[in-house]
């Protein structure tokens, strides 16, 4: 899906003028863009367009962006970037918990948005010749195939959750700060929003931990960050 040829973007934005201008700007950045004003149409279009990234405004008439994320997450791990009103509002947390991978706040510059998209589409870091398959306890992580099994049962992770897991599993026992994870997975600098890491970590734990409330695989090191228990 992230081959060097054109990446496809599904753009869901009800403001027609913003949609057209964004479509033009993203096409200038080399993406193929399919735009639609409603989440309902977005869901239909998703099947046909098979986008690599979804961009969605959270405030839409009818089905809102949060609901869209929840529905889409049942079947797909595609990166979703939401467009929110305010970065300091509860909307960000709600959206991330609904399944969004990242967010931008209006007004934004398309270059900034393009950078976010590029980061989410980045391939998994392959360190100096690591094993193609990492094994952590009863977890098997097939880095190339992008698959995770827990006790031989497939676990469905989103693309971002998978990359997060690979970062941690690549160096078992090493503590990663939120800043480091933000940089490696989302491409943010020191000032990235730490909530991205926290919410994704929570979601990842519900999928790979025997008891997500008392994590034993990915543990929090207070004041420092996260590490995977080798």
């Amino acid at each position, binding site marked *: 899906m992230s081959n060097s040829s054109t990446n496809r973007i599904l753009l869901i934005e009800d*403001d027609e*003028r*913003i949609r057209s*201008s*964004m479509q*033009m*700007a993203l096409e*200038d950045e080399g993406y193929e863009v399919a735009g639609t004003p409603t989440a309902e149409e977005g869901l239909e279009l998703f099947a046909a367009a098979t986008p690599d990234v979804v961009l969605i405004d959270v405030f839409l008439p009818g089905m809102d962006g949060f609901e869209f994320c929840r529905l889409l997450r049942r079947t797909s791990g595609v990166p979703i970037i939401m467009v929110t*009103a*305010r*970065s*300091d*509002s*509860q909307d960000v947390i709600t959206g991330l918990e609904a399944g969004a991978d990242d967010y931008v706040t*209006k*007004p*934004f*510059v*398309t*270059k900034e948005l393009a950078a976010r998209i590029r980061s989410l589409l980045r391939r998994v870091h392959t360190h100096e010749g690591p094993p193609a398959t990492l094994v952590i306890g009863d977890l098997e992580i097939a880095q190339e195939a992008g698959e995770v099994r827990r006790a031989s049962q497939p676990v469905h992770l989103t693309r971002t959750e998978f990359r997060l897991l690979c970062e941690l599993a690549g160096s078992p026992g090493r503590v990663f700060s939120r800043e480091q994870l933000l940089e490696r997975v989302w491409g943010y*600098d*020191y*000032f990235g*929003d*730490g*909530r991205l890491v926290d919410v994704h970590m929570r979601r990842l734990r519900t999928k790979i931990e025997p008891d997500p409330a008392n994590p034993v695989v990915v543990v929090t090191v207070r*004041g420092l960050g996260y590490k995977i228990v080798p």
Partner: protein
Amino acid sequence: MRRLGIRARVTAAFALGALVLSVILAAITYTLVRSETLRSEQSTDQRQAFVAASLIHAGLRASNPDIPVLLGSLGVPAGSIPILAYQGSWYSTSLGAVRDSLPPGLRRLVTSGSAATQRFELNGIPNFAVGVHLAGTGASYFEVFSMANLHHTLDILFFSLASAAGATTLGGLGVGRWASQRVLAPLRETARAAAAIAGGRLDTRLVAGDADLADLATSFNSMVEALQRRMRRDARFASDVSHELRSPLTTIQTAVQVMQHRREELPARSAQALDLLSVEVDRFERLIQDLLEISSSEGARMALEEVDPGELLLQCIAATGVTGFPVDVDPALSGAVLKADKRRFERVVANLVENAQMHAGGVTRVSATRIGNSVQIAVEDAGPGVPENERQVIFDRFARGSAARRRAAGRGTGLGLSLVEEHARLHGGHVWVEDRPSAGSRFVVELPLSTPDT
């Protein structure tokens, strides 16, 4: 002379009142007790003397009376001395008592045929003498009563009353102090609340604990509420306007970017116009961002994290992209923990650096210093400094210290420094500007460090 405070005055009034009242009461009590005791003592003495006199009178009528025996048979009570003047001689049962013991006035009066009494002092001892002329015998009978015991009792009474008056005065002083403190407590509470509100804690309210002060509390609270409502309305208006502007601004910005992408295809004049448009759209965007930030700062959600202040400062400076000045981090800050919203902190540093770059000839030095349990972030510049009278207003919204210079720079939103102040306040700190010893000014943000967890 400075007028005394309410507390001192109330306390003094209570003490003075207690003093006057207790002295009057003590004086009345002493006077009444003294006169009544003296009166009853003297009438008892008088009766005793008259009885003795009638016995002597009867004894003298007998033939050949033996005067000493007669006097001795009287059986006068202790502390009283009988004296008899008979046929030019003076007799007494007491050795020392002679006619000179008696005051001459009394002596004359009685020997000339009357009955009389007199209080007098002899050798510093108060005495009471009763004299009776014994008609038909030419004799005069006197009896002298010592009043030393009575006076001693009265002295004790006097000292007791005086001490009681003193104690009452002290008590009045204490009660006055306590009462004035009680009365002034709501006033102090009000002053504290007013100070808190002036300091920006607008949700401060007075509790109407006392029925008499309920009016004050109610009107105070409604004043604060009106103020808060008004401020909220203003903030919401700015926030609403900014929100409404975001959508068209997104379109404009994105469209400008599409045009910039094709700049080479445009005729020279259009390209020039596009550049103007770009710059202004960027500035407009910054203004909207600042407005949103400042109008949402009340009740804003702080994304607080525990960070290393020195590291954070270095990251902030790196993020500004401005170089060519030293950044000094106090070694005493190693291990220090600052609870900060990194994004807001970054805005603080970025705005201060930008301010120095745009208006003050550039940053000359940035430092982070530990002062007690706080960290001071200082940004120094090479500018002309900020005049004394502008040092506070410079942090006001849209304050234009030197208007011409600021507009010439063309990028400032007029909100940069007030955002710095706002963010510093949200971190429990504050900001000020001072002169550098050599030249230029120094903006200092002081933030409290958090005590490391144990």
